[in-house]
């Protein structure tokens, strides 16, 4: 249930900029990682660093590390498995992930 606040008109406060509906980057990120039932896992031994998975991830959840390998951010990976399907050398494995709620 959402919070209910009853305020007399004379006691309404000014909230300054916080009263304007805008959002600035850098706030708390919703953990959409807990949506998934399967998660992609990168096998670095097979990976040829082509960066196709990085390009195709709709969530921008795959970053490239210093050595050029893709790294998946499981906090926001929804488990769509586009990376798994499109890896040209099948270096990404699909693993069951039914307990994603531990990320919350």
């Amino acid at each position: 249930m959402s919070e209910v606040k009853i305020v007399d008109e004379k006691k309404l406060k000014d909230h300054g900029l916080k009263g304007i509906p805008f959002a600035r980057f850098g706030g708390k990120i919703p953990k959409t990682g807990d949506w998934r039932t399967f998660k992609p896992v990168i096998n670095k031994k097979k990976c040829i660093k082509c960066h196709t998975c990085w390009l195709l991830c709709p969530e921008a959840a795959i970053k490239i590390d210093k050595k050029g390998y893709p790294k998946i951010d499981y906090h926001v990976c929804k488990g769509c498995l586009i990376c798994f399907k499109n890896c040209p050398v099948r270096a990404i494995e699909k693993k069951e992930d039914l307990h994603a709620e531990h990320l919350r």
Partner: protein
Amino acid sequence: MVEKSKKPEKRIGIKDLPKEDLLIGGPPTCAGCGAELGQKLVLKALGKKTIIINTSGCMTLTPIYPFTPFKVPWVHVAIETGGSAATGILMGLRAQKKDKNVNIVVYAGDGASYDVGFESLSGMAARRENVIYICYNNSSFGNTGFQWSTSTPTGSMTTTTPPGKKQPIGNIMPRKNLAKIMAAHDIPYVATAAIGYPLDFINKLRKASEIRGPKFIDLLTTCPTGWGTDPSESIEINQLMVQAGLWPVYEYENKELKITIEPKFIPVERALLRQRRFKHLKKEHIKKIQEMVNKEWKLIRQGKYMEVEMY
């Protein structure tokens, strides 16, 4: 004779792209959303000095107060204000002399571009505003649950054109071809693209950003929820749609049409019957759609695709 796929100069490859993303994950969009991927690619191609103008639709819910995934300015006004809000922002920046090298991009859905926002898109193009207008096309009013829009192709099921005894084909109307309509506005750059060919899309964006004037790109984005496909197949299904000839991928500038992804012309049912929205189609419907595709490509090959009949 129309030129077939010719590689544009300075083609960008994956390794040429900036590694940093200008947006992050976290929005409550569907898993495997083609439009969200498109949004990422737009920012990948255009860089930090980009302002995204959104119109009410699936992508409106990418930021949800107080969270926003964007590291660039993002503005939402109303569903049909893509072109007009972009004009306003351009006016304001120009008045303050802050518009140099800033990409003003409208990322609007097909419902908001083909239908309700067409007036403002047309006005923006007719006034020759320096705006890149990208229509992310899932061929429906997606955010409200997949209803018919004028971009819905023949044969598609939508919740407002459901197949039934009286109308077994589902949607009987042909889709509007917005890219052709925008070309008829005589704007400097019109293109179609598909999320299944991300580098082609990025190259077109880079090209558009260097042209002055209104630019229009119609981007076919897979909607796994609406089209009825597995989220992991979003790229594959999109590629099949292009390869069947159902979505010609081209660019049109200086009155010259260039096909940038040459399709192999696989039979249309290979692309259609994998999507739940077309599963109800009978043999005669598929034949009709194949004929429509053949006719469209005949016009393309004859160089008559962009012709508008003049008195």
